[in-house]
């Protein structure tokens, strides 16, 4: 069966396209991208409304699907349902499950659940160390052979400089990135919020930006020493961005990602509108305006490589406790596209083409996975985006099993019209006016 997406604004930076084109999907592949493709008898024609964007499938390279072990928060099925509703055709999931994804058995299990759900593609990320205990390397070649695309001890930093060195040396053989949760743990201490005026006013223990940048500098130095590839996860502090720029200026193989909440929100949220709201508690914490502005500058000038959500579902009961006791993290899959359009594209920070780089092309390159481009012959993973759709975020109607988002009730400009994975339409927004099923 063939499907022709007609007259959409195709934004595909890998192929240098940004303009009105037709995209012909044949089975699970992209057959052609050109102007005025003629439809034959067995082709379903979908007229893409004016202004809608046809982009290579978005890839969220940092999500927690919680399965196995914490299925009360999220499962592979609910997490990938949230992903496609958020416009993502693929997600890379973190290994801090229970048991930890430090062996091929767990990787196989996640991939089996992903195949059963049959929604977004799932790329598991393996652990750096056995049990994420920070002592001995996990069987990384085995994880890679089972389908892992990167390694990380996310949730924690790689415990020691020596272990990080060995991980970078070892993964260099496979050209796999080591994804690092940068946090100098003694400096973070018992902190729960960004160290600054707002945390002080509320009596919350602080975490300075340097807790992140010190670890980033360690890892960038080790990437330079070893020739390995390090990817800085969920960058939040301006000092860390400086560290990344320093590394890049020296030719170190370092890349980084920023979450929507770190380029939209600041620590002013700690006190207002809801004081001590556990849905503004995440790690790294929301930082001050200067940091948020630095992230925007990095997105604009190219220092930031990717936008990832750090989708971290937690059960309502777990978040409905004192701020100090609540777990870190918020969901992100179903709010990212709207926040990106509203706060980056419509705010004039970046172009749509740059947004596609950040959400699709660069994540595909960093993880060395298929996708990121609407090339002929490539798998038909396509996100149809509606940049002018008015979206009111509703936590209650989200597909994620957890509703822990600080964006509930926000009205934003920009949304997802449809998501296509391997030629199958896996999501259509009912208010998107896209005649497709």
């Amino acid at each position, binding site marked *: 069966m063939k499907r022709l997406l007609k007259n959409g604004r195709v934004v595909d930076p890998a192929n240098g396209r940004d303009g009105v084109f037709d995209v012909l999907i044949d089975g699970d592949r992209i057959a052609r991208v050109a102007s005025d493709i003629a439809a034959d008898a067995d082709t379903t024609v979908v007229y893409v409304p004016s202004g809608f964007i046809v982009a290579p499938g978005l890839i969220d390279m940092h999500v927690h699907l919680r399965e196995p072990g914490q299925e009360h928060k999220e499962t592979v099925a609910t997490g990938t349902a949230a992903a496609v509703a958020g416009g993502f055709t693929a997600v890379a999931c973190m290994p801090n499950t229970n048991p930890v994804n430090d062996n091929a058995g767990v990787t196989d299990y996640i991939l089996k659940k992903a195949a059963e759900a049959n929604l977004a593609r799932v790329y598991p990320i393996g652990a750096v160390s*056995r049990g994420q205990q920070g002592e*001995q*390397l*996990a*069987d*990384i*070649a*085995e994880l890679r052979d089972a389908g892992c695309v990167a390694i990380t001890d996310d949730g924690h930093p790689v415990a020691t400089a*020596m*272990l990080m060195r*060995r991980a970078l*040396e*070892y993964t*260099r*053989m496979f050209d796999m990135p080591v994804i690092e949760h940068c946090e100098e743990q003694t400096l973070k201490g018992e902190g729960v919020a960004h160290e600054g005026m707002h945390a002080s006013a509320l009596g919350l223990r602080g975490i300075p930006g340097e807790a992140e940048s010190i670890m980033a500098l360690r890892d960038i130095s080790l990437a330079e020493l070893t020739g390995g590839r390090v990817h800085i996860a969920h960058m939040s502090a301006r000092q860390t961005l400086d560290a990344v720029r320093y590394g890049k200026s020296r030719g170190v193989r370092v890349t980084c990602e920023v979450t929507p909440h770190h380029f939209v929100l600041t620590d002013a949220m700690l006190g207002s509108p809801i004081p001590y709201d556990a849905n503004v508690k995440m790690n790294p914490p929301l930082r001050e305006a200067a940091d948020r502005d630095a992230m925007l500058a990095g997105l604009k000038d190219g220092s930031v490589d990717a936008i990832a959500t750090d989708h971290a579902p937690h059960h309502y009961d777990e978040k409905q406790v004192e701020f100090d006791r609540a777990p870190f993290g918020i969901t992100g899959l179903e709010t990212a596209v709207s926040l990106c359009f509203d706060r980056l594209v419509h705010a004039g920070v970046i172009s749509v083409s740059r947004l596609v780089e950040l959400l699709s092309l660069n994540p595909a390159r960093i993880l060395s996975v298929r996708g990121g481009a609407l090339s002929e012959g490539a798998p038909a993973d396509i996100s149809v985006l509606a940049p002018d759709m008015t979206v009111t975020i509703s936590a209650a109607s989200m597909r994620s099993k957890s509703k822990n988002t600080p964006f509930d009730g926000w009205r934003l400009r920009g949304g997802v019209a449809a998501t296509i994975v391997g030629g199958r339409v896996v999501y259509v927004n009912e208010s998107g006016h896209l005649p497709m099923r």
Partner: protein
Amino acid sequence: MSSSIDAAVADADVIMMLRIQQERMSGAFFPSTREYFNTFGMTTERVEKAKPDVIIMHPGPMNRGVEIASEVADGPYSVILEQVSNGVAVRMAVLYLLAGGQEGD
């Protein structure tokens, strides 16, 4: 140069293995001997990718099941025992010459 043993073995005339110095490895250079064997170990399947008249060498002592499978070490392509025997003679000769002996003595 390649870090893929399969690429390295393809069409090889001679495969020279080397011992992993486990006694000097407190710092976990690689994850486990199991993974080392799966990733780098010389197995019958890998030998079959080399030339049909390949010879397998190893200066010994071997860690069987780590860098080399016993079937390969003791198999038809192995010249390891000859290598080790000749290695003794070569060392004797070198030591003799270094100690002042003359060629032809």
